């Protein structure tokens, strides 16, 4: 009986040491692990991707002990607020909507969004400029949105839930399209390939990555989008009261930009320099 008590008490002690040591001066970074090439998982379940590698470098510059925590996208911001982790690096664009709830570091990479369809879709060959910036606006943007509104009328478009892409489609800028929301980008891609949805909207690299890996004839159509509902680049999400951590991240991002690390990793994962 005594031995059992001893075992029990020592287990609790060991657990307590384990828990406290895990919290000592370490930063937990939340990521989704399902948005390649930003963040993903390899076959063995290990987290990989642009942001996973960048996070490791930022932690070295901050001289901090980091752990990367996986979190489903739809619970990303609630998870930060509930202190499951201290920072978000998950391809999350800096938007006014999100700034109401959390803070962002300066942007570290640019994300351009694009519509994608299957080859042979009637949406191919839309007559729009190559890129539109909703923050700048002007006649070209208005005209492009008009073209899109006409082309997308009555079409079903798939997006990942709680994204800038969902917000944009629901903003009414392209009329009243039928929006179908998915838990992960993988599921959006699957239904696009299966023909359940007429088009999908996400980061352009998410589609090119999928087309390359699956061999499915997914093609980008229409303009690439930035600004407005699409935010101002991707940054590190941090709780509003964590101003110290915000400063640390901003400093580390500066270092990584100046020494070329962000560019290097962007070229490695995206195939082009998406650093900002």
């Amino acid at each position, binding site marked *: 009986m005594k031995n059992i008590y001893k075992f029990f008490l020592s287990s609790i002690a060991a657990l307590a040491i384990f828990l406290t040591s895990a919290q000592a001066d370490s930063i937990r970074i939340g990521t989704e692990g399902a948005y390649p090439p930003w963040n993903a998982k390899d076959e063995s379940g290990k987290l990989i991707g642009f942001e996973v590698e960048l996070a490791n470098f930022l932690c070295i510059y901050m001289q901090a002990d980091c752990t990367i925590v996986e979190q489903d996208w*739809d*619970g990303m*911001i*609630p998870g930060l*607020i509930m202190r499951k982790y201290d920072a978000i690096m998950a391809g999350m664009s800096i938007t006014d*909507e999100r700034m109401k*709830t959390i803070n962002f570091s300066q942007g570290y990479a640019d994300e351009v969004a694009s519509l994608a369809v299957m080859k042979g879709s009637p949406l191919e060959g839309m007559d729009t400029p190559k890129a539109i910036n909703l923050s700048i606006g002007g006649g070209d943007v208005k005209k492009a949105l008009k073209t899109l509104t006409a082309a997308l009328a009555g079409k079903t478009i*798939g997006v990942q*839930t*709680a994204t800038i892409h*969902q*917000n944009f489609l629901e903003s009414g800028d392209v009329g009243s399209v039928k929006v*179908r*929301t*998915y*838990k992960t980008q993988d*599921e959006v891609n*699957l*239904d696009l390939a*299966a*023909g*359940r949805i007429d088009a999908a909207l996400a980061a352009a690299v998410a589609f090119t990555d999928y087309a390359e890996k699956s061999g499915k004839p997914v093609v980008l159509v229409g303009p690439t989008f930035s600004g407005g509902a699409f935010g101002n680049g991707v940054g590190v999400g941090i709780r509003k009261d964590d101003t110290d951590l915000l400063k640390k991240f901003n400093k580390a991002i500066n270092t990584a930009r100046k020494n070329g690390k962000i560019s290097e990793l962007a070229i490695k994962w995206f195939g082009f320099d998406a650093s900002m």
Partner: protein
Amino acid sequence: MDINFALEHFPRLLKATKLTIELTLLSLFFGIFVGVFFAILRTSKNKILFFIAYYYSYILRGTPLLVQIFIIYFGLAQIEWIRESFLWIFLKEPYSCAILAFTLNTGAYTSEIFRSAFETINKGIVEAANGLGLSKLNTFFKIKLPIAIRQSLPAYGNEMILMLKGTSLASTVTLLDLTGVAKHIISTTFRPVEVFIIAGSIYLIMTFVVHNFIKFLERRYDYN
């Protein structure tokens, strides 16, 4: 808990409850036919029919409903000849995929409930019916089935509640049922606590109604 915030989003959740109720009722309705059909097969002396019914129930009860709905929705859509067949008209829509998955699932449980109910019928009653000269069909519909239905009421009530809660998985295939809309609201407000408490309460009220409805039936058809 912020009451104003809760009140602001309550109407949207209530509206989504309609789809939850619809999915539950349709699945249970089709599930009863599937269940009775397979329960009868289970009493069959034909070995092949018995095995089909046995393994249908075994597989559908032995795998998670989430896996089943994923296989039907995402899995079947990967197979090209299915996409090119007439089945695709049906399988293309998340709504019909959800109904199909729920029906097959509740059908398996219902078949088990009915099977055990049929098995508990006193042999003497069946012999008495035979003695009175009732045909096999008459014995089934006028004697066995009513007794089996009454016997299975408590267990079936339980299944209704499980199915009602199970429909929350419809949100995983893009449907905006009660859970789907709750997640949708959370994705823009980032406030899971309030929204899930309201959604949970609506589920609780619905299960309360089902629970008491079954209790009423049990008392109404009490044969003691």
